[in-house]
């Protein structure tokens, strides 16, 4: 199960074009480009990802380096040239995946808006998890149906809905459906219909 690394690919590309594809300036731009890319990813670790947008399933190679302060630094994301699905190509969305990965526009801590409030309040994870768990239990208790009008055992909760995540991995999605059905939730939905 070997993989064609980015460096191999650059070398292959450079070797394949270097002898014939000279630029109008009389020197080999492909080689210069390869050297530049080498510098950008020198010493980087290569990891595998898949594009988070549409469902072509474009394989990504992510290059990371550990910064002096010990944090992981993402240097570059690009298409994996070895993929039989893509042969390394990416669209504008996949090609800018790094901007999504490293966005500074994220919500940085849990937020709460009380009934009728006009602004968010910054709160802790424990606050939201306890409060939402309390709501789930109360709504479940209020809307749980053990038997329907015909006397059928149905054991369902009619007052809670869950919708999620076309960018969930299979494993997260599987856990979500299992936990929700465990709670008796029947209104379960995702992006497939919409």
């Amino acid at each position, binding site marked *: 199960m070997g993989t*064609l690394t980015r460096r191999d690919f650059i070398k292959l590309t450079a070797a394949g074009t270097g002898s014939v594809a000279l630029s109008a300036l009389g020197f080999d731009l492909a080689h210069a480009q390869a050297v530049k890319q080498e510098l950008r990813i020198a010493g980087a670790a290569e990891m595998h990802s*898949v594009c988070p947008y*549409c*469902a072509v*399933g474009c394989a990504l190679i*992510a290059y990371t380096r550990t910064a002096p302060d010990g944090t*992981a630094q993402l240097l570059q994301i690009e298409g994996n040239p*070895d993929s*039989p*699905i893509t042969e390394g*190509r990416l669209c504008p969305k996949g090609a*800018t995946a790094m901007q999504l*990965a490293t*966005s500074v526009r*994220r*919500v940085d*801590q849990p937020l709460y*808006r009380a*009934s009728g409030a006009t602004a968010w309040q910054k709160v802790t994870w424990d606050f*939201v998890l306890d409060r*939402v*768990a309390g*709501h*789930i*239990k109360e*709504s*479940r208790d209020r*809307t749980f*149906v*053990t038997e329907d009008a*015909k006397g*059928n*055992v*149905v*054991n*369902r909760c009619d*007052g*809670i*809905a*869950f*919708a*999620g*995540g*076309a*960018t*969930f*991995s*299979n*494993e*997260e999605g*599987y*856990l979500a*459906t299992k936990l929700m*059905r465990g*709670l008796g939730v*029947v209104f*379960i*939905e995702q*992006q497939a*219909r919409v």
Partner: protein
Amino acid sequence: MTNHWRDIKNADLILINGANPAEAHPVGFQWFMRAKLDPTKGPGAGGGAKLIHTDPRFTRTSAVSDMHLRIRTGTDVAYFGGLINYIVQNSRYHADYVVHYTNASFIVKDGYSFQDGLFSGYQPGTRSYDRATWSYDTDAKGFAKRDLTLQDPRCVFQLLKQHYARYTPEVVSSITGIPQADFLRVAEMVAEMGRPDKVMTIVYAVGLTHHTTGTQLIRSGALLQLLLGNIGRPGGGMNAERGHANIQGNTDNAISWDILPGYLAVPMPGEKTVDDYVKVAAAKKLDPNSWNFFGTNYRKFMVSLLKMWYRDAATKDNDFAFSYLPKPGGNASWMSIYDQALRGKMEGVILSGMTATSIGPDTAQVLEALSKLKWLVVMDPFPTTSSEFWHGPGMDPSKIQTEVFMLPCTHWIEKDGSFTNSGRWVQWKDQVLPPQGQARHDHWVLADLFQRVKKLYQQHGGAFPDPIQHLTTTYKDPVRPELDELAQEMNGRDLVTGKRLATFAALKDDGTTVSGNWIYAGMYPESGNLTKRRDGVRNPAKNDPTGMGYYPNWAWSWPLNRRVLYNRASADRAGKPWDPNRPGIQWNGTKWVGDVPDYPPAMNPADPKAWLPFIMNGEGVGRLFSNALLDGPFPEHYEPVESPVDNPLHAATSASPVAFLYDKAAGRPDRFGTAAEYPYVATTYRLTEHEHYVTQQVPHLVQLQPEAFVEIPEGLATEKAIKNGDMVRISSKRGKVEARAVVTKRLGALQVAGKQIWQIGIPIHWGFVGISAELYPDKSQHWLANALTPFVGDANARTPEFKAFLVNLERM
């Protein structure tokens, strides 16, 4: 997809309907172009595959296609019906395949009929069908009677021929707006694909599904493919281009009200035992040579799931805790959630990576629904139009009592796990970065919430806590399950040996095996996680031994690493490929070779007892006629619920008589417009540079497509004195969009039922949240495309009619 992305290169003819792959799936589109540039492919003597793009808009897909047919949105049943009629009337179907691999020869019961737009069994009071007459005439053993000469007037073939005889080129043109001459050119190319040595693929996206006839729109394409003998073959099939990274996998894993993992039906009220359930849900064997693999094994898959979920609490004596599974009281899909909220019956909604406000349909109605909730949880890396709904345009926060929680969650690159692409290839990804800031993984948040709720029930009791207490969450850390642990759980294991399964064939119905999702069994056998394999194109000779593009050691595809579904149908009855140059699987005298066979690997096709090719249904063959859908055994053209014309086939039953009208059913006022007030047809779509709404947070992509716009055909713009770049207001009965006009030749007039019809195009990506909204705070108040769309659903899937509705247009 029945097939997969790379396989599209194997086609001679590519029909693209309700899709724009060059812009919406550009990297996948390379395989269309490879087919086009391959001189060994194509109709006649070859010279390259032909691409036919049938779409309301001329797009970059059209630009490289051999023909663009401008079609009125939502009328593809008429187009495919016309093609079916052409090949049946001219005997251009694949005769051997149709006789032996489809139910063309099956005899339908007396009592089935179709008249004036209604199939037999219509119940106007409930807007539904009693489907009793849509079934076969059976013998004493319960097997369907057949006439292999296809001459019996009650056989499926004759009924199909009669049904589609109305879809003449004239009628097709009158409904769709496609000129007859263009239609006939395509029909002739399509007809050639009934030859065994030719093959066509049909590729579609949500341009086909987002209609009140969506399920039948897809089915009409599938019927055409069965008649041409193109299902199960490399280069063939019905191929859905899915729009999100793991929408396929999350359907497989049943984040959907009506299914359990692996497409097992959700149990319904009245099913008291697993046996009751199997009796209702599993297909019955309808032919002595039908394997009926799914129906026969349904019980094993269900018991193995129950045993996985409730382990020690699931025993033979309590019917494997079948009573724990919730049984829905009615439809519980996307629109039903907001319908229940509007009725005051829904208390809380959890949105994890989805936004109700932007998705709609009918944003005003969805916002009202959100305002009626007691609580709303939004789990996302970024603010969304749902987390911010309470202070969005036109909302008064002080009047909205809904408590709102915004939980910052990680995104794809901060966790590992697998994505399943459109072609069912399951690819593992690494965790590349740690969670940013206080963000937590969605699955950890859900696991943590579950454990907290469980504890509350332990402390205080409450409504039937047993399913919560007994659900297995025995992960190394129950509030932080690893995705690797979950992948193993989906795969399943044998409880006697303790070993992970290599195939679902090992599943049993006695409680000695467990599997969270039977179709993923084999993904993670004892040898390891096969979705991590990456033997790719660097070495085609080694990694693609058949040369057909399967690359069997790149990732893993369900089921069992099969790359083309129904591949037994790629070979004739003797086991020889229909086209020796494009084999799927073939019988080599002792076993089936090629792709992973969809058939017993050593079953000799010459054996009189050999199974029929389609192992997943009771008939053992592909179904041209079926009672599985709620709106008809054959696809029929119905107008969109909002349409500028009456149905030319049956004006009295113009739209689908069983489309689900939520407002009407709930006693709310009608929210549909008429052509008198709203004379133009509108449709919605995506652009290359954006993906729904999340890309409003990505600066490069916002730079490329910074502002909402609508596409207006030149002729209509002239009529309305609208110039390129003017601000225009598009309104429907439900709401409005205000955006810049792009005046274009990409849209144009159609002649439909003797009338001139204009279509308008509206990209979906903008709203009141994101970088563009911050740049243009005033303008962004009316950018949500789904403010316009109707709250109405397909009878089967309850898919909203996002792609066909009526609007008015004004210059601002």
